[in-house]
């Protein structure tokens, strides 16, 4: 027993934990620990402070179901393929019953690391989805210089001659429809080697009605009428060519940004997959929710079957659920065949009579009892739409009230669902929102000027070069990708860091840019080169980065709270400072005089940038602070983070100037416009919001990201705003 030393102080034990104790003292403490039960317990207590972690981890190797457990097949049955996450020392092999891996072996090698592969003249960027028929890819047509969607027939189906022939025939027929409410099919091609057929079609920027209903359901009446009207027109055009869709459902109705134009997709293709499955197994897979009775009973579909399906979709938009629901496909099919749907007015009393009646007629069991053609349905909608437009534009003031009430309610009601329903219920169906496209909040209908996607993971930082020609994005997989903005194509992909790239920033002149990574390195790059021109080493992961405007000094902040100032021509830091907790953001004032840091300890710190001596702290946030931005004259710094609030501080006296709740979740990105008049924020809710920096008034909300936004940046003249985040895409928005 080496218990000669006295018990170390709590502070020493803390340092022992974080490894910051000097070598000699550390050894002493370790030796002491060996014989002192009291200190063993104290150390563990400090390490797990306020939690029951010691108890929780005990026997944790049994926490994941065993490899032979029925849990894993059950999980597969739910459609979940978990990535391999072996628990330490007890790897859990997955059972054999996994879903078949997505095989993209029909693709040729990619022309750039940013792409997944190549198919004919197409650079394939990513997989958009996977359906019963095959896989859907997003690709860039190098010959025609445009983005397209490609549907590739499932190789299993392609092995079947009939399916193959039918796929080509249906696709060619679909290509013959030219209508603004039908997704354009450009051509049908076959891949060179194995003759696998694929369909090249228009890439629709936007979402499907299925996704839309996922956010908001039921929809406002006006929106239902607009969607119904346009879908009916699309069907009319197809039916005029003798083409039956056979699978009208929310997933096949696209809502194209920016004007929310409705486009029908996948004409005739459902049949290709079903025929094969029917002959193979006797069953049709997929959802029967919108299927017409004659289809449900195995009969032949005609144009009136499409009308029934559209009726079922309209019903769901009004009621918030499809007309027939059940626990199994069989139960639904039986209802479709035998039962009358529940009257719409019982589920949603504000649906106008004419609409409810129209839907009833579309849902007639006998095809002969339905509205006879899509043309007649379209005409009916046109008429009602014209009526609605005139009546609602008569009452603009009420509309504004309605809009406002909805906004407030949305803040109160979880998930913003059902809010419209309530507000509409209060105000009457007539006084609906002014704009048919506004989902719920004060939303800008603007579509992004560019969507730069195809990144393999979360985008943690985005930066414009001074000329606004190149956008650099820091990606979770360690890559930094430089995009050429005018052509929306990848210029270069740099394998920049091991682990996440947390930050990237261009120099004032655009000659170089800096990146920081989870590997503790800060690197400088010339845009033209694949190798770093300079590397600075930090002891721990670097989260925040700020390049002085004179391009002489770089500041970095790490997860361990280390703040360093590096002259760009030196190998060692000139100045070092330390703050408690992790640093998440570093920003520098326009005059290069003041540095701001923020992180896990909720306090924003201002530092003299020349000496790294601390000025006053800015306290008030109730959780970690994720992001910071100085305004144009450096008099203000804006901050936001976990507590959802946006706060503006006076950098002269440390006073809080303004604060408001910005998003429904964590805020991850904040940026002052270059002229200091506007403030952009991006959050966990996937929304980009633009605020008046002076009044805190919400100017616009840009929707498009499906997942959390982690970074925002304005270009030099403030006309463009880039947002990036968890969905792996960067969207560039035009700012007025």
């Amino acid at each position, binding site marked *: 027993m080496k218990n000669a030393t006295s018990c170390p102080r709590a502070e020493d034990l803390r340092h022992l934990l974080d490894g910051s104790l000097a070598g000699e003292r550390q050894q002493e403490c370790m030796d002491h620990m060996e014989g002192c039960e009291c200190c063993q317990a104290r150390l563990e207590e400090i390490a797990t*402070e306020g939690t029951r972690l010691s108890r929780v*981890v005990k026997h*944790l*190797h049994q926490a994941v179901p065993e490899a032979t457990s029925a849990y894993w097949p059950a999980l597969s049955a739910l459609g979940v*393929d*978990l990535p391999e996450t072996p628990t330490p020392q007890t790897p859990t092999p997955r059972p054999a019953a996994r879903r078949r891996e997505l095989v993209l072996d029909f693709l040729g090698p990619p022309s750039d690391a940013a792409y997944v592969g190549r198919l004919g003249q197409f650079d394939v960027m990513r997989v958009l989805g996977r359906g019963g028929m095959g896989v859907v890819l997003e690709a860039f047509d190098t010959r025609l210089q445009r983005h397209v969607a490609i549907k590739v027939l499932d190789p299993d189906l392609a092995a079947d001659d009939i399916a193959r022939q039918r796929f080509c025939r249906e696709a060619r027929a679909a290509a013959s429809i030219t209508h603004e409410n039908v997704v354009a099919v450009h051509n049908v091609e076959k891949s060179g080697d194995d003759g696998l057929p694929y369909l090249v079609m228009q890439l629709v920027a936007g979402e499907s009605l299925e996704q839309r209903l996922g956010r908001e359901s039921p929809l406002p009446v006006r929106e239902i009428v607009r969607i119904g009207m346009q879908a009916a027109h699309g069907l009319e055009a197809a039916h005029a060519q003798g083409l039956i869709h056979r699978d009208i459902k929310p997933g096949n109705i696209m809502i194209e940004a920016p004007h929310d134009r409705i486009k029908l997709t996948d004409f005739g293709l459902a049949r290709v997959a079903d025929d094969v499955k029917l002959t193979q197994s006797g069953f049709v897979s997929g959802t029967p929710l919108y299927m017409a009775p004659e289809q449900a009973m195995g009969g032949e579909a005609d144009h009136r079957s499409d009308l029934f399906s559209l009726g079922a979709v309209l019903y769901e938009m009004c009621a918030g659920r499809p007309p027939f629901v059940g626990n199994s496909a069989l139960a639904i099919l039986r209802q479709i065949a035998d039962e009358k749907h529940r009257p719409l007015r019982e589920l949603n009393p504000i649906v106008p009579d004419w609409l409810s009646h129209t839907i009833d007629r579309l849902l007639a069991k006998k095809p002969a009892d339905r509205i006879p053609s899509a043309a007649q349905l379209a005409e009916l909608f046109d008429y009602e739409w014209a009526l609605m437009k005139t009546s609602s534009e008569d009452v603009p003031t009420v509309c504004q009230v309605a809009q406002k009430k909805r906004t407030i309610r949305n803040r109160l009601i979880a998930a913003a669902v059902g809010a419209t329903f309530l507000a509409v219920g209060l105000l009457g169906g007539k006084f609906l929102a002014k704009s048919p496209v506004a989902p719920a909040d004060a939303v800008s209908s603007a579509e992004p000027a560019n969507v730069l996607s195809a990144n393999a993971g979360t985008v943690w930082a985005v930066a414009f070069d001074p000329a606004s020609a190149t956008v650099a994005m820091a990606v979770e997989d360690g890559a930094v990708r430089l995009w050429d903005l005018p052509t929306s194509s990848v210029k270069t992909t740099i394998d920049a860091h091991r682990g996440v790239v947390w930050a990237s920033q261009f120099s004032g002149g655009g000659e170089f840019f800096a990146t920081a990574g989870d590997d503790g390195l800060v690197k400088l790059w010339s845009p033209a080169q694949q190798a770093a021109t300079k590397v600075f080493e930090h002891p721990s992961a670097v989260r925040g980065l700020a390049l002085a405007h004179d391009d002489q000094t770089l500041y970095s902040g790490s997860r361990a709270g280390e703040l360093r100032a590096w002259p760009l021509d030196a190998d060692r830091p000139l100045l070092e400072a330390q703050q408690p907790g992790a640093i998440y953001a570093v920003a520098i004032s326009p005059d290069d005089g003041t540095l701001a840091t923020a992180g896990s300890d909720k306090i924003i710190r201002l530092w003299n940038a020349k000496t790294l001596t601390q000025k006053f702290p800015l306290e008030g946030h109730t959780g970690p602070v994720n992001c910071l931005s100085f305004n144009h004259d450096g008099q203000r710094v804006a901050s936001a983070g976990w507590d959802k609030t946006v706060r503006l501080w006076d950098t002269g006296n440390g006073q809080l100037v303004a604060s408001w709740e910005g998003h429904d979740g964590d805020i991850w990105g904040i940026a002052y416009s270059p002229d200091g008049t506007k403030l952009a924020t991006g959050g*966990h809710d996937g929304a980009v919001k633009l605020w008046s920096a002076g009044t805190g008034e919400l100017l616009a909300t840009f929707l498009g990201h*499906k*997942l959390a936004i982690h970074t925002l940046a304005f270009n030099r003249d403030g006309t463009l705003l880039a947002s990036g985040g968890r969905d792996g895409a960067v969207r560039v928005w035009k700012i007025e």
Partner: protein
Amino acid sequence: MSVDDSPLTRVSLLVQLRDGSNHVAWREFMQIYGPVVYGFARSRGLQDADAADLMQDVMRSVVGAMGRFDYDRNQGTFRGWLFTITRNKVFNFLSARRIRPQGSGDSTTNRMLQSQPEPSDGSDEWELEYQRRLASLAMDRVKGEFQDKTWRAFWLTAVEGVAAADAAGQVGISAGAVYVAKSRVLARLKEEVEAIMRHEES
């Protein structure tokens, strides 16, 4: 700790879950909550296959409820709601077993049945399962940050319950170093668990 005292869980994730095609959200969700539901069912006495079925059943209900908006944020946390669903299904399962004549007559099962309807009952186990799941995910994430010896010292003592002196022998470091290693990993795990929870509850 009650299951309802933390801020609500990830409404944003739930919204994404409603979009059935969002496999990322669904996978993330299942990665955390699948084992929690399964583990809880096991802790209530269900056999492996029954617990797996129940997990599947609960998750289908979750998806269904997303479609019907059964879940109201103001009613409590998502975790609490999921607990209610799970607890009810476990109760139903055990009740069904009770009325079957060939069902288990043993007193443990009966006691369990008696105690099921109590609203507070099981919430501690539920919370523990959740904490264990978070800790397990955190371990996966932080393991790579430590030297092999440090990790093994932690694993042997904190997880497997091996005495420090024995672990020291197996790993080849001093017992004092074993204690420090164990606490260092615990401290890092605590940080990571808190990070996951913040993410979860945002």
